[in-house]
């Protein structure tokens, strides 16, 4: 753990450093996030047909997200723990409200219109679910016993199903994995983990039965995209062409031909990695993955240094969920996972995911900068 000791020493006595520390900002994590966001603007400019309008709108969202992160970083983690259950229950209530309104509206309903702004409860649930489970498990000795496991599983399944019913498979997946992350860090026995994996595989036909038509289509398309090149397999084939044609060094910034020609759908949102890979090649992709790993590594380090069980579990889960984001998005764009609507974190165009993500990082920073006692 030598590297981590070094990063702990990384505290330049500069004015900015002092201000950031006063703001409870973790400098290495902050640098990683700013760097990724800047990269996002560079790619969005190219993928969004070089429209400044898109950058301005994304800039506003990123600004808001960083603001929220700073606010959350300032709050004592004890407060998060204290309000975990309340926030979780509010989230579930809003999800049900959205679902009922969706029934009335006849169609996919994810938004809640609160007069002056629209709000997506499923985004909030992404953070409140691991908070809730971490809070619950921290009350008991670890590793969790079967009764706690059962209740924790219930706490994961309820929001997951509510979101899957909206239907929003991507978010449901992220919520489930954030909850599962807490269980994993809480010391869920390996045998149990293997058992769950076996159970899920055997339950596949049941899950299949509950899937909606378009969700089934996505899975089928993932298994054999070439079967329907103009229809459902289009996204995957086109993004593979874009990535593959990028080669080792890429076609250079603004050099993407596939997104330019509209061959590549959703090039600014879920499939932005394809544009990135086409323009910056294998080198760029590996570089981006390293950048993500540095952020995740820092988050795991923060988790390891956390001083109470709740903080550890929550920090570990947030780090893990961030990786799930990266893995699922890139995995689907390069054609090794089915297409589910998960954006590339911090890079894809779109406001809600970046706000939630940076809120999570704000909590991580809060955990790291509000130490009650020094480690021995």
């Amino acid at each position, binding site marked *: 753990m030598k590297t981590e000791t070094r990063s702990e020493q990384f505290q330049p006595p500069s004015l900015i450093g002092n201000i950031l520390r006063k703001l409870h900002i973790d400098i290495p994590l902050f640098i990683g996030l700013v760097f990724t966001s800047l990269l996002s603007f560079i790619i969005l400019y190219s993928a969004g047909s070089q429209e400044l309008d898109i950058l301005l709108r994304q800039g506003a969202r990123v600004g808001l997200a960083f603001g929220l992160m700073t606010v959350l970083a300032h709050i004592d983690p004890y407060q998060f723990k204290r309000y975990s259950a309340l926030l979780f229950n509010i989230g579930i209530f809003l999800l049900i409200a959205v679902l009922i309104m969706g029934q009335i509206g006849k169609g996919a309903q994810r938004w809640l219109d609160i007069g002056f702004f629209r709000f997506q409860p499923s985004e909030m649930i992404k953070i409140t679910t691991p908070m809730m489970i971490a809070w619950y498990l921290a*009350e*008991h*000795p*670890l*590793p969790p*016993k079967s*009764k706690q496991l059962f209740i924790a599983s219930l706490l994961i399944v309820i929001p997951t199903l509510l979101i899957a019913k909206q239907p929003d498979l991507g978010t449901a997946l992220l919520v489930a994995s954030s909850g599962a992350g807490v269980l*994993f*860090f809480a*010391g869920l026995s390996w045998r149990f983990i293997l058992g769950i994996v076996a159970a899920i595989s055997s339950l596949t036909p049941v899950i299949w039965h509950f899937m909606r038509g378009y969700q089934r289509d996505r899975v089928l398309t993932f298994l054999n995209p070439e079967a329907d*090149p*103009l229809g459902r397999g289009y996204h995957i084939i*086109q993004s*593979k*062409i*874009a*990535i*593959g*044609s*990028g*080669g*080792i060094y890429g076609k250079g910034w603004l050099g993407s*031909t*596939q997104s330019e*020609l509209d*061959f590549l759908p959703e090039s600014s949102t879920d499939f932005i990695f394809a544009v990135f*890979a086409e323009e910056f*090649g*294998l080198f760029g*992709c*590996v570089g981006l*993955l390293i950048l*993500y*790993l540095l952020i*995740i*590594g820092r988050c*795991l380090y923060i*988790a*390891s240094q956390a001083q109470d*069980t709740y903080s*550890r579990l929550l920090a*570990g889960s947030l*780090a*893990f969920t961030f*990786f799930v984001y990266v*893995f699922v998005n*890139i*995995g689907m764009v*390069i*054609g*090794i996972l089915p297409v589910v609507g998960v954006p590339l974190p911090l890079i894809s165009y779109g406001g809600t995911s970046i706000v939630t993500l940076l809120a999570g990082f704000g909590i991580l920073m809060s955990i790291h900068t509000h130490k009650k006692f020094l480690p021995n």
Partner: protein
Amino acid sequence: MSRTYTIKDNLVENRLFLNRIAAAFITIIVLTSGLVIRLVYLQIVGHEHYATLAKDNSIKIEPLVPTRGIIYDRHGKILAENRPSYSLELIPEQISNLDDTLLRLQKILDIPDEKIEQYQKQRIRQKRFTSTPLLISMSDEEVAKFAVVRPYFPGVDIHARLVRHYPYYELASHVVGYVGRINETELKTLPIAEYRGSNHVGKIGIEGFYETELHGKAGYAEIETNVQARAINIINEVDPDPGANLYLTLDIDLQKTAYDALDTFNGAVVAIEIKTGGVLVFASRPGFDPNPFVVGITNNAYQALQSSDNQPLYNRALRGLYPPGSTIKPFIGLAGLEYNAISYQHRLFCPGYYQLPNVSHRYRDWKKGGHGGVNLNEAITQSCDVYFYTLASMLGIDRMHAFLQQFGFGEKSGIDLVGEKSGLLPSREWKRDQRNQSWYPGETLITGIGQGFLQVSPLQLARATATLANKGNVVTPFLVDKIVRMGSTSRGPETHDKTIPLKLGNVNNIIQGMVNVVHSARGTAKGINNDITYQIAGKTGTAQVFNIKQDAKYNENEIDFKLRDHALFISFAPADDPKIAVAVIVENGGHGGSVAAPIAGKVIKQFLGDQK
């Protein structure tokens, strides 16, 4: 399980947690490596394969342009057709140096700069990767020349396209119209899906009015291509719906007779089949050759057409407005009878002028010394102005306006062409609204002889004549008789029945007056009554020209000619069973009887001669 006997062992928990962090980190590294391996597979191993696919994304959707409908005349003669022609087309995105390529092409094929400019303009408007024509209607020689050097011009190719052709050139240019390249404004209003692949759209005339019917519906083909963008397989094809063929009521031979008869004059001839309202002749002279508009008329040629004093682009039959002159008299006479302002035996004395009470101004007759005592019939035959001054004064402008309106003066006929003018039928209200002046009695008088504010188009005049011949059953003119689609035929525009309540005796009396115009010894158009077994009813007219073009160059002979009166003639035949109504306007023709009437005579004789 209660918290009282569960003691948290922080040390154990801490170790467990750190182990899990390490396990998570290892898992993340392993999974990320999986991503990298996949990326290596795609970007290094599969690079060549995917680069090829990217270069020419292997599936293309090609629009299939529908064949434009053909336009026929009433006897099935082709007025507008599609001819196969070769065009030189470029896909700018496949050319590395466009300017250089154009320069080289220009040298080899002698392309004028103007065509290059035109191409550049059109290219910018096109979607990316669209083949845009540089030359249309290439000669065999040009095709051969390019074929030799083709390998040196990637992205440039010869395409066989159907190009619109108008075999009658200037003869029917105004009525048939033409297609031209789609311009920016049209691009915004036309349905994009239907016009993907189409370069042309109907601009004026029938081509413009029936654009939707003629164009048809576009189809498309999903084509698999190889690296050279050559089609190797058609995956799916949806055939286009060809445009409908249109059968006009127009008789192109009769049109030619009318057009030729106008000779060197500018003017218009409109003939209507009375029973149906179908337009037989719709001639405006001078015409213009519509074919250059299809390939893209050069700026110089267009300017020449635009600035010509004879205004060949101007559709006189539809948009030309003239004072009707004496051709209005039969209608005024009929109004007098219908309103019981006068009886047809009633004689008025014509001293050669007319004076309003207490006004010294004399309104002159065209015949110095006057016609003496004339009844209505004789007044029409001899075109006595004083009789109609008197009658107009008795009727008043309000009743004249109401009566003439029923015959379609002052309103659009509703013919299936765009840009029709409604002319002007003056009234008290009109003058108050438009000129802010009250109506003067003198204006009533000159309206009675078809001068003053009154303005009519040749089409309106023909329509009113046909309605008169039809004893008040209003005739609605139209041009398209049948619209023939694949497997279905529909009629042209709907005509609605409307009847002006007229007393048959009154109408017959007026018609008798018009017959005398042609057939009596004192008739103003007696020159055309030879060689016929039936009677023609007609009325001559002479309209004063009171304005010359402001910017016209001063040239004594020219001005003299331009100041000459317009000659008019309205007619229908046979008088006892009217089949055809003809209106003729000859600009600066002088006298209706000597110049305009013979033109109508030729049209009537040919039409009725063909009928037998």
